């Protein structure tokens, strides 16, 4: 014999919970319960009698905390099937606690669809409620009213959204399924159906003006609009009244735009252009390193400039006695526009400090001025510059050397070595030795690149190499 349970047509969880609990404790299977909506016609096919839950408690109920929100959301759906489905899930969850993570199950599939529809309805309510202003309260607080017709029983779900957003004004949202209101201190939710109230608000006209002018008649895609803003919501949206006219006139407006003859530019255009040109002429660059820097920034000698942010030019005094040449700017250097500011640069600065050398006494630059990289997802992966990139940047390095006239050049790593002393030397043969280059007028010290030490990680070898680097850098002091 079937049990009949009649519930009110709201999203209230407790009435269902009490009944479902009592039924489950008495081991009544889902097919033996008929769930009815209050005030609706009786189910014609079952002549069931209302039974109160007596009899002994035979079973303990277990439910994972993560399953509860799903049941609650199912019960917000407007379908009369919701009570039965929620009970069926509860029943099956007793033997199969992981049931809800099997979306291919028909019951779970239906529950997921209903939950999705409920969440969408709640979201659309937060989007499409429109407040109209009423006269303020006696205390001077501004008061707003709205009439809305939600798809499902979502009032309780969305009430906190409105309370947290519109805290400094009184508001009331009326719907056929009940109402919610806020007066600055308490949030009230009622399930008594409400009637529509008419109200005027002048700001709405400005809003319509905005809506009409932000629409682009050259790209009419009404289907995309209707997918996201279904017609059933239109009657309560003040701006939706404009849609038919906007769509009807769109084609004509575009045709008019195309047919219009080009007019001569307005008067102020020429004045503005002249002023801009005068400004460009005034901004002249001085000579020396600053001018060289401008030339480097404008360099298009190899394709590296296409994807790099900027050319990273050398940094330091024109009178520096020591020039440090690195490989190329890395990710951080490329963004900041300064050499040796990334992780490898920081390691190098640490070594300088331990060797007792101030950054200010050096001229820091790179063999290649633009960052060469490939992208992998959202990361940039460093790539060693090729011979062609070193060659393209060679003239810039030569000019920097000519202007700074250093007594010593320290090259870091193989790329810098190649740029400074050509392809004949091998890094491992001459690392750490100070060589005087009579032909060039400066000495050359060749060291490993700090990024290589970084790649060794926190091994013993890394520390050895770091010490070797510091020992190498100490040799600089003889020049300073």
């Amino acid at each position, binding site marked *: 014999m079937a049990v009949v349970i009649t519930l009110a047509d709201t999203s209230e969880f407790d009435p269902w919970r009490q009944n479902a609990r009592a039924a489950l404790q008495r081991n009544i299977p889902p097919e033996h319960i008929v769930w009815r909506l209050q005030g609706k016609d009786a189910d014609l096919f079952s002549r069931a009698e209302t039974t109160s839950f007596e009899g002994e408690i035979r079973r303990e109920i277990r439910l994972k905390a993560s399953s509860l929100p799903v049941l609650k959301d199912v019960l917000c759906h407007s379908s009369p099937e919701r009570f039965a489905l929620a009970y069926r899930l509860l029943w099956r969850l007793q033997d199969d606690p992981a049931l809800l*993570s*099997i*979306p291919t199950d028909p019951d779970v*599939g239906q529950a997921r*669809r209903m939950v999705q529809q409920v969440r969408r309805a709640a979201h659309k309510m*937060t989007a*499409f*409620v*429109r*407040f*109209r*202003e009423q006269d303020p309260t006696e205390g001077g607080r*501004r008061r707003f009213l709205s009439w809305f017709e939600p798809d499902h029983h979502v009032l309780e779900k969305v009430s906190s959204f409105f309370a*947290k*957003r519109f*805290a*400094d*004004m009184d508001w009331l949202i009326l719907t056929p399924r009940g109402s919610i209101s806020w007066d600055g201190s308490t949030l009230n939710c009622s399930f008594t159906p409400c009637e529509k109230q008419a109200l005027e608000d002048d700001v709405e*006209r*400005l809003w319509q003006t*905005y*809506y*009409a*002018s*932000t*629409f*682009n008649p*050259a*790209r*009419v*895609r*009404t289907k*995309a*609009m209707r997918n*996201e*803003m279904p017609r059933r919501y239109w009657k309560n949206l003040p701006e*939706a009244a404009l849609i038919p006219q906007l*769509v009807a006139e*769109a084609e004509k407006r*575009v045709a008019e*735009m*195309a047919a219009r003859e*080009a*007019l001569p*530019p*307005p008067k102020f*255009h020429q004045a503005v*252009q002249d*002023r*801009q040109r005068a400004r460009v002429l005034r901004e002249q660059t001085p000579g020396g390193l600053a001018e060289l820097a401008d030339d480097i*920034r404008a360099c298009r000698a190899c394709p590296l400039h296409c*994807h790099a*942010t*900027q050319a990273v030019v050398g940094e330091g005094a024109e009178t520096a006695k020591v020039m440090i040449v690195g490989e190329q700017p890395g990710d951080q250097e*490329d*963004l*900041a*526009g300064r050499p040796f500011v990334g992780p490898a640069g920081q390691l190098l600065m640490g070594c300088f400090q331990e060797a007792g050398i101030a950054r200010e006494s050096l001229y820091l630059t790179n063999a290649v001025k633009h960052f060469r990289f490939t*992208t992998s*997802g959202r990361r940039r992966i460093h790539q060693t510059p090729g011979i062609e990139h070193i060659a393209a940047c060679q003239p810039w390095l030569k000019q920097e050397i000519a202007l700074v006239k250093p007594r010593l050049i320290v090259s870091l790593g193989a790329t810098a070595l190649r740029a400074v002393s050509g392809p004949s030397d091998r890094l491992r043969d001459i690392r750490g030795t100070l060589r005087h280059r009579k032909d060039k007028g400066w000495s050359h010290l060749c060291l490993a690149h700090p990024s290589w030490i970084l790649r060794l990680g926190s091994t013993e070898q890394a520390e050895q190499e770091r010490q070797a680097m510091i020992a190498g850098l100490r040799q600089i002091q003889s020049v300073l």
Partner: protein
Amino acid sequence: MKKSLSERLAILSDAAKYDASCASSGSTRRDSAKTGGLGSTTGNGICHAYTPDGRCISLLKILLTNFCVYDCAYCINRSSSNVERARFTPDEVIWLTLEFYRRNCIEGLFLSSGIIQSSDHTMEQLVQVARDLRLKHGFRGYIHLKTIPDASPKLLEEAGLYADRLSINVEMPTETGLKDYAPEKDAGGIRRAMGDMRLKIDAAKEKTHTGRRAARFSPGGQSTQMIIGADAATDRDVLASSSGLYGSYGLRRVYYSAFSPIPDASAILPVRSPPLQREHRLYQADWLFRFYGFEFGELTATRPGGMLDLEIDPKLAWALDNRAQFPVDLNRSSKEMLLRVPGLGVKTVQALLMARRHRAIRLEDLARLNVSIKKVRPFVKAVGWSPARLTDRQDLRTLFLPAPQQMSLL
């Protein structure tokens, strides 16, 4: 005679509508429950209305003024255009924002401006609106500010303090395109500004060594926009540019805006309807990059002329060109491979991964997850289903095309 507020609203929103970005997502969550003020951000944006062009209205998108000293060919507000000019005072913008917000019409403000006098002067005005909204009116909704590339660092820092998102438009996919169409704009300057913003955004996320939080800076990150179809750039150029932008500057979004005819257009521009389908395919490619683990290069590698297929979506086009990787076993394949199956979305893949821990997946199960069986069939294997020779059929592509329509005789 001075124009009324309504007239100026019409002019200045019309002037701002060619900016596609309207997102109000990605910022920190906050609300007015404790302060008793106005406004909140939920993390996910809300679209409050849709216009018949299919675009959403989430923010009040307006210009402070449409006077501009630049003469960028694609822009309705360029100095040589005869469009009607107007300007708002900062207070008018603030009033409009707050009143629309109170009526639940918008999530916040997206403010941009034509360049007047100097970059710093323009930026100062934009920052003033954001500052007053936050400090004078306690507004906690969303603010998106357009940044002017060479404005002073101090103004930029203040903008980042009050705004949820900052953006600079790269405008054209290639540097040469920018030079041709926006001679006064400097691609290098735009990139430097974006690099600088990235460093500031990253720095604001880290705590100092004393554990103190760094000053807020644009918690919703930065975005940019490219105009599609005005110059000769191919989809490969566009996507290569996107790849660099996402990788280099950690952008939240790159927007693609099909060039649409503007009133009083410059003579060097094409007069034709906007390439909406192309724009749509680019967005799909962008989605595949951001959520499906595709690299931009893969999508255009095999495409003739570097253009995406307009008839079928880029994921399907990729699958048809890389059939050696299919069929994919629904019960055994990795998440990465499942995401590459045409017809399976991110949520479906998550559901499949969850379900297959408990039960073996059959082809019919996909129908319950709202997947089009017809579309996935050639690319998957499941219990009781193997596509056999279907995957390698020569005419596979034609099965996915919309049915041909007879042209009318007259």
